[in-house]
Protein backbone atom coordinates (compact mmCIF):
# COMPACT_ATOMS: atom_id res chain seq x y z
CA UNK A 1 0.00 0.00 0.00
CA UNK A 2 1.32 3.44 -0.93
CA UNK A 3 1.28 6.39 1.44
CA UNK A 4 -1.49 7.91 -0.65
CA UNK A 5 -3.53 4.73 -0.40
CA UNK A 6 -3.12 4.73 3.37
CA UNK A 7 -4.58 8.23 3.57
CA UNK A 8 -7.50 7.23 1.38
CA UNK A 9 -8.12 4.24 3.58
CA UNK A 10 -7.79 6.25 6.79
CA UNK A 11 -10.32 8.83 5.61
CA UNK A 12 -12.77 6.44 3.97
CA UNK A 13 -15.17 6.21 6.89
CA UNK A 14 -15.13 9.99 7.29
CA UNK A 15 -16.00 10.38 3.64
CA UNK A 16 -19.08 8.30 4.34
CA UNK A 17 -19.98 10.35 7.40
CA UNK A 18 -19.63 13.61 5.50
CA UNK A 19 -21.62 12.26 2.56
CA UNK A 20 -24.53 11.53 4.89
CA UNK A 21 -24.89 15.29 5.43
CA UNK A 22 -24.23 16.11 1.78
CA UNK A 23 -20.53 16.95 1.85
CA UNK A 24 -17.57 15.68 -0.14
CA UNK A 25 -14.19 15.10 1.47
CA UNK A 26 -11.00 15.40 -0.56
CA UNK A 27 -7.39 15.75 0.44
CA UNK A 28 -4.11 16.92 -1.02
CA UNK A 29 -0.48 16.88 -0.02
CA UNK A 30 0.92 20.11 1.40
CA UNK A 31 4.67 19.87 1.65
CA UNK A 32 6.58 17.21 3.52
CA UNK A 33 4.29 14.63 5.07
CA UNK A 34 1.45 17.10 5.44
CA UNK A 35 -2.13 16.78 4.27
CA UNK A 36 -4.83 19.37 3.71
CA UNK A 37 -8.35 18.02 4.04
CA UNK A 38 -11.02 19.91 2.13
CA UNK A 39 -14.75 19.61 2.75
CA UNK A 40 -16.99 20.75 -0.11
CA UNK A 41 -20.75 21.11 -0.06
CA UNK A 42 -22.98 19.46 -2.63
CA UNK A 43 -26.24 21.06 -3.73
CA UNK A 44 -28.16 19.08 -1.14
CA UNK A 45 -25.82 19.66 1.77
CA UNK A 46 -27.31 20.34 5.19
CA UNK A 47 -25.60 23.59 6.12
CA UNK A 48 -26.55 23.41 9.79
CA UNK A 49 -25.29 19.83 10.05
CA UNK A 50 -21.63 20.51 9.35
CA UNK A 51 -19.25 19.68 12.17
CA UNK A 52 -17.43 22.85 13.33
CA UNK A 53 -13.79 23.28 12.42
CA UNK A 54 -12.17 22.38 15.77
CA UNK A 55 -14.15 19.14 15.93
CA UNK A 56 -13.37 18.34 12.30
CA UNK A 57 -9.69 19.02 12.91
CA UNK A 58 -9.70 16.65 15.89
CA UNK A 59 -11.35 13.94 13.80
CA UNK A 60 -8.96 14.28 10.87
CA UNK A 61 -5.80 14.49 12.96
CA UNK A 62 -6.69 11.27 14.75
CA UNK A 63 -7.67 9.55 11.52
CA UNK A 64 -4.33 10.35 9.91
CA UNK A 65 -2.28 9.14 12.86
CA UNK A 66 -1.73 5.63 11.43
CA UNK A 67 -0.54 7.04 8.09
CA UNK A 68 2.83 8.58 7.17
CA UNK A 69 1.08 11.97 7.01
CA UNK A 70 0.06 14.61 9.51
CA UNK A 71 -2.83 16.99 9.19
CA UNK A 72 -1.82 20.46 8.06
CA UNK A 73 -5.30 21.96 8.24
CA UNK A 74 -8.93 21.44 7.31
CA UNK A 75 -10.80 23.67 4.89
CA UNK A 76 -14.55 23.95 5.35
CA UNK A 77 -16.93 25.44 2.80
CA UNK A 78 -18.31 28.96 2.87
CA UNK A 79 -18.61 30.74 6.19
CA UNK A 80 -17.85 27.74 8.39
Amino acid sequence: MTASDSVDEALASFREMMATDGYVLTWSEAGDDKVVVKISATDGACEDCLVPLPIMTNIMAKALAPTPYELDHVELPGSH
Partner: protein
Amino acid sequence: MSTSTREALLYPTGAAEGLSEGTLSPRPVSLKGLTVGLLDNTKPNSTLLLDEIAADLKRDYGIGEIKHYVKDYFGTPVKDELFDQIVSEVDIVITAVGDCGSCSAATVADGIKFERAGIPTVSITSDSFAMSGQAMADVQGFPGFEFVMVQHPVASLDVEHIRGRADQAVPEALRILGVTETI
Protein backbone atom coordinates in the same frame (compact mmCIF):
# COMPACT_ATOMS: atom_id res chain seq x y z
CA MET B 1 -21.77 28.81 11.43
CA SER B 2 -21.14 32.00 13.40
CA THR B 3 -18.27 32.42 15.82
CA SER B 4 -20.64 32.62 18.77
CA THR B 5 -22.38 29.43 17.71
CA ARG B 6 -19.07 27.65 17.30
CA GLU B 7 -17.93 28.81 20.72
CA ALA B 8 -21.22 27.69 22.19
CA LEU B 9 -20.69 24.26 20.74
CA LEU B 10 -17.13 23.93 21.95
CA TYR B 11 -17.54 25.53 25.34
CA PRO B 12 -21.10 24.79 26.37
CA THR B 13 -20.40 25.67 29.98
CA GLY B 14 -18.99 29.00 28.86
CA ALA B 15 -15.79 28.35 30.77
CA ALA B 16 -12.71 26.46 29.76
CA GLU B 17 -11.64 25.56 33.29
CA GLY B 18 -14.10 22.69 33.50
CA LEU B 19 -12.92 20.96 30.36
CA SER B 20 -10.57 18.58 32.12
CA GLU B 21 -13.33 17.08 34.24
CA GLY B 22 -13.74 13.54 33.00
CA THR B 23 -15.61 11.85 35.81
CA LEU B 24 -19.15 10.58 35.55
CA SER B 25 -21.77 11.67 38.05
CA PRO B 26 -22.81 9.05 40.64
CA ARG B 27 -24.76 6.25 38.97
CA PRO B 28 -28.27 5.44 40.21
CA VAL B 29 -28.22 1.57 40.21
CA SER B 30 -32.05 1.67 40.27
CA LEU B 31 -34.36 3.94 38.29
CA LYS B 32 -37.38 3.32 40.52
CA GLY B 33 -39.22 6.56 41.19
CA LEU B 34 -36.61 8.76 39.56
CA THR B 35 -37.69 11.74 37.48
CA VAL B 36 -36.40 11.42 33.94
CA GLY B 37 -35.90 14.38 31.64
CA LEU B 38 -36.20 13.78 27.91
CA LEU B 39 -34.27 16.43 26.01
CA ASP B 40 -35.42 16.59 22.40
CA ASN B 41 -33.04 18.32 20.00
CA THR B 42 -35.82 18.82 17.37
CA LYS B 43 -34.38 16.39 14.84
CA PRO B 44 -37.10 14.27 13.19
CA ASN B 45 -38.15 11.29 15.29
CA SER B 46 -36.30 12.47 18.39
CA THR B 47 -39.55 12.83 20.31
CA LEU B 48 -40.80 9.43 19.27
CA LEU B 49 -37.51 7.70 20.06
CA LEU B 50 -37.29 9.31 23.49
CA ASP B 51 -40.92 8.46 24.28
CA GLU B 52 -40.42 4.83 23.29
CA ILE B 53 -37.35 4.55 25.49
CA ALA B 54 -39.10 6.22 28.40
CA ALA B 55 -42.07 3.86 28.05
CA ASP B 56 -39.73 0.90 28.39
CA LEU B 57 -38.06 2.42 31.42
CA LYS B 58 -41.45 3.10 32.99
CA ARG B 59 -42.70 -0.41 32.41
CA ASP B 60 -39.59 -2.39 33.29
CA TYR B 61 -37.59 -0.15 35.59
CA GLY B 62 -40.25 1.89 37.39
CA ILE B 63 -39.12 5.38 36.57
CA GLY B 64 -41.23 8.13 38.10
CA GLU B 65 -42.27 11.32 36.39
CA ILE B 66 -41.23 11.94 32.79
CA LYS B 67 -40.52 15.54 31.82
CA HIS B 68 -40.15 16.72 28.24
CA TYR B 69 -37.81 19.49 27.13
CA VAL B 70 -37.01 20.82 23.67
CA LYS B 71 -33.86 22.60 22.53
CA ASP B 72 -34.27 25.58 20.27
CA TYR B 73 -31.56 24.44 17.87
CA PHE B 74 -30.06 21.00 17.31
CA GLY B 75 -26.57 22.11 16.31
CA THR B 76 -25.47 23.70 19.58
CA PRO B 77 -25.62 22.59 23.20
CA VAL B 78 -28.59 23.33 25.40
CA LYS B 79 -28.76 26.95 26.49
CA ASP B 80 -28.04 27.84 30.08
CA GLU B 81 -31.59 28.77 31.06
CA LEU B 82 -33.03 25.45 29.92
CA PHE B 83 -30.00 23.60 31.29
CA ASP B 84 -30.52 25.10 34.75
CA GLN B 85 -34.21 24.25 34.65
CA ILE B 86 -33.54 20.64 33.73
CA VAL B 87 -30.85 20.22 36.37
CA SER B 88 -33.24 21.51 39.01
CA GLU B 89 -36.15 19.29 37.94
CA VAL B 90 -34.86 15.83 37.07
CA ASP B 91 -32.69 13.00 38.34
CA ILE B 92 -31.62 11.64 34.96
CA VAL B 93 -31.46 13.01 31.42
CA ILE B 94 -31.84 11.20 28.13
CA THR B 95 -31.16 13.31 25.04
CA ALA B 96 -31.57 12.55 21.34
CA VAL B 97 -30.89 12.38 18.58
CA GLY B 98 -27.54 13.07 17.05
CA ASP B 99 -28.01 11.99 13.47
CA CYS B 100 -25.92 14.64 11.75
CA GLY B 101 -22.43 16.02 12.25
CA SER B 102 -23.20 19.06 14.34
CA CYS B 103 -26.12 17.60 16.27
CA SER B 104 -24.23 14.46 17.26
CA ALA B 105 -21.43 16.64 18.61
CA ALA B 106 -23.94 18.84 20.43
CA THR B 107 -25.77 15.85 21.86
CA VAL B 108 -22.54 14.55 23.35
CA ALA B 109 -21.66 18.03 24.62
CA ASP B 110 -25.04 18.16 26.34
CA GLY B 111 -24.43 14.83 28.00
CA ILE B 112 -21.06 15.93 29.30
CA LYS B 113 -22.52 19.19 30.54
CA PHE B 114 -25.22 17.40 32.54
CA GLU B 115 -22.77 14.82 33.88
CA ARG B 116 -20.55 17.62 35.15
CA ALA B 117 -23.60 19.07 36.89
CA GLY B 118 -24.16 15.75 38.64
CA ILE B 119 -27.00 14.46 36.45
CA PRO B 120 -26.49 10.98 34.97
CA THR B 121 -27.13 11.37 31.27
CA VAL B 122 -27.57 9.24 28.20
CA SER B 123 -26.77 10.90 24.90
CA ILE B 124 -28.04 9.11 21.80
CA THR B 125 -26.51 9.46 18.35
CA SER B 126 -26.70 7.37 15.21
CA ASP B 127 -23.74 5.14 14.53
CA SER B 128 -22.84 7.00 11.34
CA PHE B 129 -21.88 9.99 13.47
CA ALA B 130 -20.04 8.23 16.25
CA MET B 131 -16.81 9.92 15.17
CA SER B 132 -18.33 13.35 15.55
CA GLY B 133 -19.61 12.55 19.01
CA GLN B 134 -16.31 11.07 20.10
CA ALA B 135 -14.40 14.06 18.75
CA MET B 136 -16.58 16.35 20.85
CA ALA B 137 -15.89 14.21 23.92
CA ASP B 138 -12.17 14.49 23.20
CA VAL B 139 -12.32 18.25 22.74
CA GLN B 140 -14.35 18.58 25.94
CA GLY B 141 -11.63 16.75 27.88
CA PHE B 142 -13.89 13.76 28.53
CA PRO B 143 -12.65 11.14 26.05
CA GLY B 144 -14.16 8.30 28.08
CA PHE B 145 -17.67 9.69 27.93
CA GLU B 146 -19.88 6.91 26.64
CA PHE B 147 -22.97 7.51 24.56
CA VAL B 148 -25.53 5.29 22.91
CA MET B 149 -25.18 4.71 19.20
CA VAL B 150 -28.23 3.41 17.36
CA GLN B 151 -28.24 2.27 13.79
CA HIS B 152 -28.41 5.05 11.19
CA PRO B 153 -30.78 6.41 9.96
CA VAL B 154 -33.29 7.69 12.48
CA ALA B 155 -34.97 10.69 10.89
CA SER B 156 -36.53 8.83 7.97
CA LEU B 157 -37.95 5.89 9.91
CA ASP B 158 -41.56 4.96 10.60
CA VAL B 159 -42.95 4.17 14.04
CA GLU B 160 -42.20 0.47 13.83
CA HIS B 161 -38.55 1.04 13.03
CA ILE B 162 -38.16 3.69 15.71
CA ARG B 163 -39.43 1.04 18.10
CA GLY B 164 -36.51 -1.08 16.92
CA ARG B 165 -34.07 1.75 17.55
CA ALA B 166 -35.46 2.07 21.08
CA ASP B 167 -34.87 -1.64 21.58
CA GLN B 168 -31.24 -1.06 20.60
CA ALA B 169 -30.88 1.94 22.86
CA VAL B 170 -32.40 0.76 26.13
CA PRO B 171 -29.82 -1.91 27.11
CA GLU B 172 -26.96 0.46 26.33
CA ALA B 173 -28.64 3.29 28.21
CA LEU B 174 -29.04 1.06 31.26
CA ARG B 175 -25.39 0.01 31.05
CA ILE B 176 -24.23 3.61 30.82
CA LEU B 177 -26.43 4.58 33.75
CA GLY B 178 -25.15 1.65 35.79
CA VAL B 179 -28.66 0.34 36.38
CA THR B 180 -28.88 -3.23 37.57
CA GLU B 181 -32.26 -3.40 39.29
CA THR B 182 -35.59 -3.99 37.53
CA ILE B 183 -38.97 -3.67 39.23
